[in-house]
């Protein structure tokens, strides 16, 4: 899950070319948004907090991208720890029912686990991705 591997493509190697092109898109898109929010917040002061929020997120992300944090350029971090970046299946699983039109379909993988969030009093255990 996202917490363990950060997405199915997380950690897959990319080339320097892709990194450079990606950096251009990243800075260009965020930069354009920064300008847009700056202008919009002058017209509508309510948007100042949105502008400042975007600025904070952008700056944090940019620093991480420039430090190559969690970015596997040219395989410098090795292969992802699990095949294709997939997370290991947790054996404590709740039932998942998957269906498609017209026929029953077996679950794709082992049933997946019910995470154990803090529970409120008296609430029964829950099958996470329960069928409707």
């Amino acid at each position, binding site marked *: *899950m*996202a*917490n363990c*591997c*950060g*997405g*199915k*493509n*997380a*950690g*897959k*190697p*990319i080339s320097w070319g*892709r*990194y450079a092109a*990606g950096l251009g*898109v*990243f800075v260009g*898109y*965020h930069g354009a*948004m920064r300008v847009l929010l700056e202008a919009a917040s002058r017209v509508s002061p309510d948007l100042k*907090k*949105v502008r*400042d*929020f*975007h600025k*904070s*997120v952008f700056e944090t*992300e940019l620093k*991480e*991208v420039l430090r190559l*944090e*969690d*970015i*596997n350029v040219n395989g410098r971090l090795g292969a992802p720890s699990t095949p294709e970046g997939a997370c290991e299946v947790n054996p404590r699983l709740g039932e*998942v*029912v*998957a*269906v*498609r*039109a*017209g*026929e*029953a*379909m077996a*679950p*794709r*993988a082992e049933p*997946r686990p*019910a*995470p154990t*969030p*803090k529970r409120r009093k008296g*609430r029964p255990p*829950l099958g*996470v*991705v*329960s*069928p*409707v």
Partner: protein
Amino acid sequence: MTTPYIPASDVLSSTGKTSRIGSSAGFPAVEPNSIALMFSGGIDSTALAITLSDHYDRVHLVTYKNGYGHYYHHRTEARVAELNEKLSTPGGPPKFTHAVISTKDYFDQIVVNSVLEDYKQYRSGFIWFMGCKMAMHMRSALYCLENGVRFMTDGSNVDTEEMVEQMLISLTLIHHFYDDLTVEFGTPVYNVRRAESKELIRQYGLNMGYEVMDRHLCIQPTCLAGELYYMPYLLFNKRVKHDEAEVARFIEQKAEICNRIVGEYFKRKSVDLGALLNDRRAQMTALGPRRALVAA
């Protein structure tokens, strides 16, 4: 603690009635075989809509607009038209009803108004997206309560679980939220491979949009904030950092705001929420246990 703000009307467009509740109308009868689906028109929700049409007499599609860089909702409307054309019985009523609803005022109260304080607390941009989705889920619960809909679902899928709102922890807590409001929520295509969903859509000859890097463009609304936030993951395969404990804490915190909005929403309509929930529970008990979404 301020009283939540409830807009006079948040329905932007609709192909059917969006509320069957009111001070004089009594409580709506729970429909035995209908379901509501949070619908964007993308791959997962379209495949799910097709699947649901096989199992339910009526599918309520609900689409939301958060008011912050959330555009092109006409794409969803085009998808609904396609679905009705392909899947409704000729001459009969449309299988799918569709409502486009603004969640901006709710989103503002849940996250936007406090976004800087929340960011200081959680140190991650996920708060924007989780807050947005919570506004949508909250409004979906209202929709179900107002229309006698027992089941609620969405197209959450393991293949896009890097998105904070599709993490198992998020779906679990959202399930609890619905549960308290007597709405039965599930994500039946969570473990269905996207390739199978795509194949299903192709079988029905529906628009697939433009395929770029496993994404299908121009078939659903665009969320500028989402594009920006997930860009490092998409461009650089950079790990998305969503700490489960922090996500859970955020949801629990914001669920309280959602519950206050729900209470105020019905108060404005002079509806006793407790009585409505009791009435639904009694009706649902009479209808019997929930039917699992499995093939006939």
